[in-house]
């Protein structure tokens, strides 16, 4: 008798119909916030910042080589992370921006990284610049570097980090992003090690987050996952973070970039 009651209760509460409807409504919400997103304001500010002379050398970033040659922004984001000979290192967008700030503008690494993650009242320079540079790759297929030995190494390291269990709660990235059709609260969890899930996600980062009205970079996304995994903090633009980003972006290869996106 109890079991019958339970079955009825279960049917009422957890019918797939309800779940399907909720999922559809949340997709509608996400579509609507993307349509009404203020993300272009960040792209505008980023463009102004890109062209603004700064640092001891009082030069802008307009001569920064993002991989397509000095000053070429069009399509550059979609090819990152990639190996840069001048730095002998695989770099993602933020690492490369930091490189240009120190080499071109003559700024110290310490000064340039003092405030890499902003807040709602004062977004960071990295956030504005990421918005602008990424926006210039809209429509270009994601193609992170995979040919140089260091690019291969970064991919393998990123993959190992993705499945590495440690931290105060014994978690790896795969603890949340390893199984299909799972949620945290109402938030759907993409299986980032599988192309079909990684593609739409990587094609829309960096992104404006409506929950706190802030523009967020991929470096922040990785940083905040580790915070919630109860790890110590990954250093900004460190090889570990770039390796993870490389693994994720290579997994998403071929997807046309359509960000910066708008997230919950």
């Amino acid at each position, binding site marked *: 008798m109890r079991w019958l009651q339970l079955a009825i209760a279960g049917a009422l*509460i957890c019918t797939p119909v309800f779940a399907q409807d909720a999922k559809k409504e949340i997709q509608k919400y996400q579509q609507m916030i993307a349509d009404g997103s203020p993300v272009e304001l960040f792209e505008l500010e980023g463009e102004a910042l890109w062209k603004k002379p700064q640092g001891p050398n009082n030069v802008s970033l307009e001569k920064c080589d993002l991989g397509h040659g000095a000053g070429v922004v069009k399509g550059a984001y979609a090819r990152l992370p990639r190996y840069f000979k001048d730095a002998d290192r695989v770099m993602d967008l933020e690492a490369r921006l930091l490189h240009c700030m120190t080499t071109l503008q003559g700024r110290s690494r310490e000064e340039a990284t003092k405030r890499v993650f902003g807040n709602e009242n004062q977004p960071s320079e990295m956030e504005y610049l990421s918005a602008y540079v990424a926006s210039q790759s809209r429509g270009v297929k994601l193609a992170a570097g995979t040919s140089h030995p260091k690019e291969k190494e970064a991919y393998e390291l990123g993959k190992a980090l993705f499945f590495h269990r*440690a931290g*105060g*709660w014994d978690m790896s990235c795969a603890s949340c992003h390893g199984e299909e059709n799972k*949620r*945290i*609260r109402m938030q759907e969890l993409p299986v980032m090690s599988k192309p079909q899930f990684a593609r739409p996600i990587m094609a829309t980062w960096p992104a404006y987050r409506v929950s706190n009205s802030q523009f967020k970079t991929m470096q922040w996304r990785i940083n905040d996952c580790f915070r919630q995994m109860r790890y*110590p903090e990954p250093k900004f633009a460190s*090889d570990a973070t770039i390796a993870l980003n490389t693994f994720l972006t290579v997994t998403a290869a071929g997807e046309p970039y359509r960000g910066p996106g708008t997230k919950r």
Partner: protein
Amino acid sequence: MRSALVFAICSIFCTAALAQDVQKVLQRDFQARGQATMDRVVQDGLQRLCTDTNDRPPGDVARQLEADQMKTIAFPAGNLVGDWKNGERIAQNGRGLQWTDPAGATGGGSCYNCHQISPQETSHGTLGPSLLKFGWMRGSGPEMQRYVYGKIYNAKAYNLCSTMPRLGHSGTLTPEQIKDLVGLLLDPASPVNK
């Protein structure tokens, strides 16, 4: 035949070599912040085994390590069913142990992030099983109380590579808080069992 052998050897040594690299990378590329200290990136035995075996450890080794984890649980004497109302608050609370949380402050269990618990809370995760009607189905006798307390205190004592954090063992929750969560799941008055 030979390639199979090479593959077998590599699957043992190559992953081991990479695990070493990852340890080194974590030491180099992470930094302590707030209460999140660097000792947290040093894998303990079970984290290492679960990583190396993709969460499928050999049965005998798993049993042994589970037994070790069981020894970490100090079961309080007497009734383990605490205040379910407080348990509900703890289940809702997603803070604790992060570098943004003050050290020593009482956090929560983040339970709703992964589990359905009280039917009123529709914003629940699905990484863990639904706990709806948990006590109603299983009763709330001493054995069940002990099982729930133990599972929350150290989930790895029951399933070595479980995704669930060791909430008591890691210092996320106090014994009192865990008893309140036992109350949330087992108390007949709790909304979970209505």
